[in-house]
């Protein structure tokens, strides 16, 4: 596996609270899973994906976690096309153009 160089911009993952350490007032499904965390920063030592590492965040905090990704990328988008939205605009314009307005 490729080594990621110290100083690279990376994303890490850590468990903040194990399921047994969580707040008592939680729904069952949430109580059964840990509280997890993701953060980004500059890698403090050469490492491979999956290694336990330290990063320096943008506010210069040192955070520990499992190395997930180098140069983390945004992948959110406009999603898959929702055809149900398409006719709404034309329908409204048609109503506005139509008669019997009480205006």
């Amino acid at each position, binding site marked *: 596996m490729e080594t990621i160089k110290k100083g690279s911009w990376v994303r890490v993952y850590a468990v*903040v*609270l194990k399921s047994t*350490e*969580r*707040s008592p*007032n*939680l*729904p069952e*499904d*949430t109580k059964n*899973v*840990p*509280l*997890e*965390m*993701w*953060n*980004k*920063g500059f890698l403090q030592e050469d490492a491979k994906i999956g290694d336990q590492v330290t990063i320096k*965040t*943008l*506010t210069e*905090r040192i955070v520990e976690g499992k190395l997930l990704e180098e140069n983390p990328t*945004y992948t*959110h*988008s*406009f*999603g*898959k*096309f*929702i055809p*149900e*939205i398409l006719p*709404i*605009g034309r329908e*409204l*314009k048609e*109503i*506005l153009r*139509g008669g*019997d*307005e*009480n*205006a």
Partner: protein
Amino acid sequence: MHKDTSYEAVMNRRGEIMKKAVGIDYESFELGGVAFDYEQMMRKTGYSLEEVQKIQRSTGVGNTPLLELKNLTALARKFAPEGKGARIFIKDEASNPSGSYKARRASTSVYHAKKNGYKGVVAATSGNYGAAVASQASMHGLETIVIQECYDSRGIGQPEIIEKARKCEAYGAEVVQLTVGPELFYTFLTTLEDTGYFNASLYTPFGIAGVETLGYEISMDFRELEGKDPDAVICTNAGGGNLTGTARGLLKAGAENTRIIGASVDLSGLHMASDKEFNRKSFTTGHTGFGMPYATWPDRTDVPRSAARPLRYMDEYYLVSQGEVFFMTEALAQIEGLERGPAGNTSLAVAFSLAQNMDKDQTIVVQETEYTGAGKHLQPQLSFARENGVEILRGNPEEEVPGKNIILPSDPKQIKARPVDLDKMKTSYIKNTVKKNNIKEFTQDEINFLQEDSKLEKVRLEAILRELNVKY
């Protein structure tokens, strides 16, 4: 020596951590028992309207356009009885520096943090507030950490929240993303303790004072445009700060006859702290999951006394469905030429419905819009819902079941804001106060406080207390 960072130890230090991170001595406003001096807190620790205006002018916040939605008004009139169909206006808050009204709320907090020598600010929010704080902090040269509840235990995140993380990072903020759960507060506290940064809480007097300019501007814009105040102002309601600040601003302008109306998306049946239900909702704010609990128990926030107390100001409260809000978001783009984010249009859906029962010469103001983009738009939000097993269809929005389906109305006349029984909410607030403090008897000071805090008639408050077997 290292401090104990176990969940319990940190929660036990919360008072001490908060005091350092907010710099407000909340104790000094306590009046004994459940009572505290709200107005004194707002005066002593907040900023005056003039000061806030000055702070906001210097960072490009506020003075947003007030737009008349002529086509939406015409559309509402198609379904209104003869002589009905109030004119609908919208305050285009998306034109604030960070793309939402939250810039107002952040401006005073960040200014205060800078003035008091803090090096940075921390905000616990999955919403527009994070970007607002980050944007303001950039202007003042401060660091920002935003802590988000973002993912479920499969590591799947709401596209809307992921977009907001991107926006925070665009302003140079550090974004800490967590899975579902109220222990976000634990991470928040350890971060404050770690950094010594300022708690840019949504619920301090600074934040609420920042929103007052919004209500004030609406009144001033209207007097200039129409020569009078609007008949109604509709605020999307979640934690209560938007409505509280706007109402206070309207009152400061002297707009005493303007009805203050709250609006939320109905997400009843979905548990907000549930890992499995987290991604079955398609709104991450402006919904009943915040609106109800925060109104009926305001002091549940990250500060000892919340400055957001919507029951003090709300005249009416209405719910709309997710499908109705998405439909209005599309309508706003298609017939008004304004493409804006869905969550901010909750109050627009309510306005469209209420306008049909108001006289033609009356006016109704939707007091915000928000920015839109990848992730934060009806297209990706509906796409995400569909991927998570929520059915998307056209039909009668009354049949929508949160978490199961989203029904885009087949006809705009089906959009009907459903009134919430405010007396019931106020009764819950009193019940919560009694239960959480184990009260057997209230003093006169406490009665006066409860009456102001709930805006209940004295006779009604006394009747509720008799039902609860509480002496007064």
